[in-house]
């Protein structure tokens, strides 16, 4: 079963959504990531921005690939070792190989996955590639992560909030400025879920990129991209996990989280997985 929540009219709370318009003349977060992962769903402006960034900070290519690998390991861990059967993937991105429902349903065909993204390009692609296993279910919600009420209402139609849910927020919170209270948004989502739920986050680390690389990267992004990226330091990152216990190995770079092979480089992303106390 695959369902899809696309409000016929905008039901978002006032001031909540900062949805990017469909615009191929500027680089866009979802398409940048697609290009970094070797996909073909990107446009000239996306490639120009990425090529400029990679000249300054070549490790960002590795960073994107390792983020994808972290998604696979974290979801597999949650499904196979913890036994989670419900996932809420916020900031889905353009579907590619190894999407959350494919990883989870490979372990447990009955797993239910709700995807959330606010990008019109992702919305279009989510139509086709998010086909679920027969036993499980997927749903797609077209919403901004700042709009937690729409997300929780939509997710509640497929997920049972009396049972644990794993929330994944990968490479997404770093486009939410402090003014929009990203820590508060994450806390609001966790509040709605029972103890024993999980949170997995990856996030651009302020101290993981040299100052000059970071300045160069920010310069390109400011001029050429729809979204701005905000690196946060380890302390700010760890605050997303308030009310949870971090599972081993705690806060590390994505390639260091329960690796299944020797890392071949150093990424610029912090990550962690936490279990809600209760």
């Amino acid at each position, binding site marked *: 079963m695959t*369902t*899809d929540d696309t409000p016929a009219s905008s039901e978002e709370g006032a001031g909540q959504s900062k949805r990017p318009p469909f615009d191929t003349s500027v680089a866009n977060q979802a398409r940048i990531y697609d290009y970094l992962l070797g996909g073909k769903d990107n446009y*000239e402006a996306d490639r120009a921005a990425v090529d400029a960034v990679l000249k300054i900070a070549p490790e960002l290519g590795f960073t994107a690939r390792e983020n994808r690998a972290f998604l696979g390991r974290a979801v597999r861990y949650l499904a196979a070792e913890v036994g989670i059967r419900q996932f809420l993937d916020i900031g889905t991105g353009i579907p590619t190989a190894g999407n959350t429902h494919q990883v989870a349903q490979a372990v447990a065909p009955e797993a239910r996955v709700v995807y959330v993204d606010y990008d*019109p390009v992702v919305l279009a692609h989510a*139509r086709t*590639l998010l086909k679920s296993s027969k036993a499980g279910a997927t749903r797609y919600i077209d919403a901004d992560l700042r709009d937690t009420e729409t997300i929780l209402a939509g997710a509640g139609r497929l997920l049972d909030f009396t049972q644990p849910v794993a929330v994944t927020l990968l490479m997404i919170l770093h486009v939410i400025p402090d003014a929009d209270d990203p820590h508060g948004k994450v806390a609001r989502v966790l509040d709605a879920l029972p103890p024993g739920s999980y949170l997995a986050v990856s996030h651009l680390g302020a101290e993981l990129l040299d100052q000059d690389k970071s300045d160069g990267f920010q310069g390109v992004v400011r001029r050429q991209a729809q979204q701005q990226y905000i690196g946060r330091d380890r302390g700010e990152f760890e605050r997303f996990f308030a009310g949870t216990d971090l599972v081993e190995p705690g806060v590390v770079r994505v390639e260091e989280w329960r690796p299944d092979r020797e890392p071949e480089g150093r990424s610029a992303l912090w990550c962690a997985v936490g279990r809600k106390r209760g």
Partner: protein
Amino acid sequence: MDTVGPDSEQLLFGLGDSAGDAAVLRMRLGGQLRRLREAAGITPEDAGFEIRGSRSKISRLENGRVRLKNRDVADLLTLYGVTDDALRSRFLGLVMQSNVPNWWGDYGDILPGWFENYLGLEAAAATIRSFEVQFVHGLFQTGDYARAVTRLGRKTAPDEEIERWVGLRLRRQELLSRPDPPNVWSVMDEAVLRRPVGDAAVMRGQYRHLIEVAELPNVTLQVIPFARGAHAGESGSFTVLRFEEADLPDVVYLEQLTNAVYLEQRPDVERYLEVVDEISGQALTPDETTRLIEQAARAT
């Protein structure tokens, strides 16, 4: 990085991997010939002259749009300074592989060359996206619907010829059920559902068939309803073919009455991708689409 020394083993790099798909192999061999020509500093005109042809013959050959002839390729390799015998014979071996006969060889009597190209690309594609303004995509037509559509364009053709076309169309559809089938994602204007092709029985059969194929895991159908108003699809119908291989560009196929256009320059292709991305976002979801087709079927 694309400059390949003519003596280098890189001449064959990656080519062996695509041996299973004649159309992909042909595109790659063509691309390699282009790189060799450019590395040797030879213009398409001069290369064309060498093989008793024109600039456009070289262009079709380098784009993988025509069968490669052994003699032409051998002459070009010589012109480009590839003299190593072992290398030449391996390259020419791949040329032969790219020419293995396809099932549509049986339809040589009716099949124009410009459509034969499409069949090769369609069979090799990993993803097929289309926008349809008038007819159901050929991969999803029933025999009766295909017969009615074919008849429209060939009013005086004998029945046997019409049946050949219908047979060809149905044969093409076998790719939907082969192992590792392509993802086919088709967005139709609501007009495709509403304008009758053939009689009511033909349309009812076609609606049923659409509802069935939409269930296939590799098929996504969407309708953009009249109620959504005008949309970005000002271009008319088109199909975008995407290949698994990272080095192969997407190809846009535009069918005309007597010919077809293949676009593969990135700026051209991206205009079409933009349109199909935008329309897919505006169109009904696959579930809503199925419900609309069910409604249309009940009303017919």
